[in-house]
């Protein structure tokens, strides 16, 4: 994948992280290097090595029981804005 200004701006927009115009070029370079490195990994020969999937992967699983939840004042503690027990944010719906 070739990285250009357009792609960097799109990713910036999607991730809601603004990039200053004079930084765009350095991002093009960084993104390209990262992708090139992944391409390099993908092109590496397995040299007959088969990557075995671990069969008995340990993964955490829990029973369907209430263990902990937060008191409401803890839940809302870091909220920039609140109203009663609700978080509030700028209106996020377009009226028809």
């Amino acid at each position, binding site marked *: 994948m070739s990285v250009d200004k357009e792609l960097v701006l*799109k990713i910036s*927009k*999607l*991730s*809601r992280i603004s990039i200053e115009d004079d930084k765009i070029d350095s991002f093009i370079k960084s993104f390209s290097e990262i992708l090139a490195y992944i391409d390099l990994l993908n092109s590496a020969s397995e040299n007959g090595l088969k990557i075995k999937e671990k*069969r008995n*992967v*340990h*993964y*955490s*699983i*829990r*029973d*369907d*029981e*209430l*263990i*902990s*939840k*937060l008191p*409401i004042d803890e*839940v*809302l503690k870091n909220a920039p*804005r609140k*109203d*009663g*027990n*609700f*978080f*509030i*944010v*700028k*209106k*996020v*719906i*377009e009226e*028809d």
Partner: protein
Amino acid sequence: MGFEAVIGLEVHSQIKTNTKLFSSSNIDYGCDPNSNVSEVDLGLPGTLPVINSRAVDLAILAGVSTNCRINKKSTFARKHYFYPDLPKGYQISQYDEPLATKGYLDITTSDAMKKTIRINRVHMEEDAGKLIHDLSNDYSMIDLNRAGVPLIEIVTEPDISSPEEAVKYLKKLRNILIFGGISDCNMEQGNFRCDANVSVRRVGTEKLGTKTEIKNVNSFRFVQKAIEYEINRQIQLIEKGKKVIQETRLFNSKSNKTYSMRSKEDAHDYRYFPDPDLQPLILSQERIDKIINSIPESFEDKISNYLNKFQLSRDDVDILISDKILCDFFDSTLEYVNEPKVVCNWILSEIIRYIKQDNFKLKGENFAKLIRAIVTGKINNNSAKEILSKVIETNENVDTLINDLGLQQESSEAFLSQIIDNVIKDNRKEYDRILNGETKLMTFFVGQVMKETKGKGNPQIINQILKERFRID
């Protein structure tokens, strides 16, 4: 040249767990806002999701019940979007390796033909929080109680051709989920919601038209209306030479129209990637088999038993299976008395009116006693109704009540003959008229005899003796 519709459905259904998919907060409905929230649901730094075992079992059960192949390895992915209903900034879902794939459900179309609707996948994901927009003009309010609630998403192939077929499929799927104990599918509470992908094309063409997606419709009637509206809207656009735009639309149940959400073009770019916080979900064949073997009776088998083994009518079965609570009561009564038709009749004529009330206490075992008393002629129907009205709220022992109230039916022929002869003596005029062919006076005499027996006379025997007296065949 006409048009045909091509419809695919995505159903989100909340599965019946006590706690969330990746956190141990409880998920009771109707709690105070933000009272069922944990650090994980808030996406606080340093927290890690841990999957709920019960949710996995129920999702497998949903896959098996929709004839899917259960994948022994499935993975969780992050689906990114910016909206305040999920504080993490992404929803944990399954993307390229879902839990179950390649299933199907059969429906019966309006011309009584069997049609197979292929199911593309069943996967697990977490629900988002609820935003309330209409309490303030300036801001939206957020309740995260639903954030992290376990959902299954069931996605069909575009095999559905009409709004009616869509509703049939949804009703069948809902019954399977309810009867399998997988989901309550309570549509008012939003735990069974449907997105419909709709496109139209000229009859005889293969290429699919541009589709639109109608989001979050939560009643069968609205699904039907929304799809009907959308099909007509698309046909009109094409006939005017305009183009259907691929977009997400919302259904307004007041106007019965769909509206564009005017979402940005790249809103669908979710930048999925495997969630590094969660290992792939590896299922053993034993676990899958255990779940398959735990299914007592499929929904299809249940219907078939009702129709064939119990000889119930199609109409009666349709009503019974429309509500699990009726089926459960029917099944539990039949454990104690083998009179399926009588039990069904009494459930559909009487019990159905009370069973959803909070104070309904009657148990199947006790109801079976009432049915036995009716069938053996111990009490007549009127007495049975009287007893029923008393035990509905108390579950008081029916047999005791029959004795206490002295409601045993009077079936002695000698006793009833005596009363009948007295009634005839007192009503000579009516007796002569009935002998002259006015047979409709029978009901008058039955009524008089019932009055004399204080409602306890056995109506069959009264009828039989009266017919002998009046020489009616």
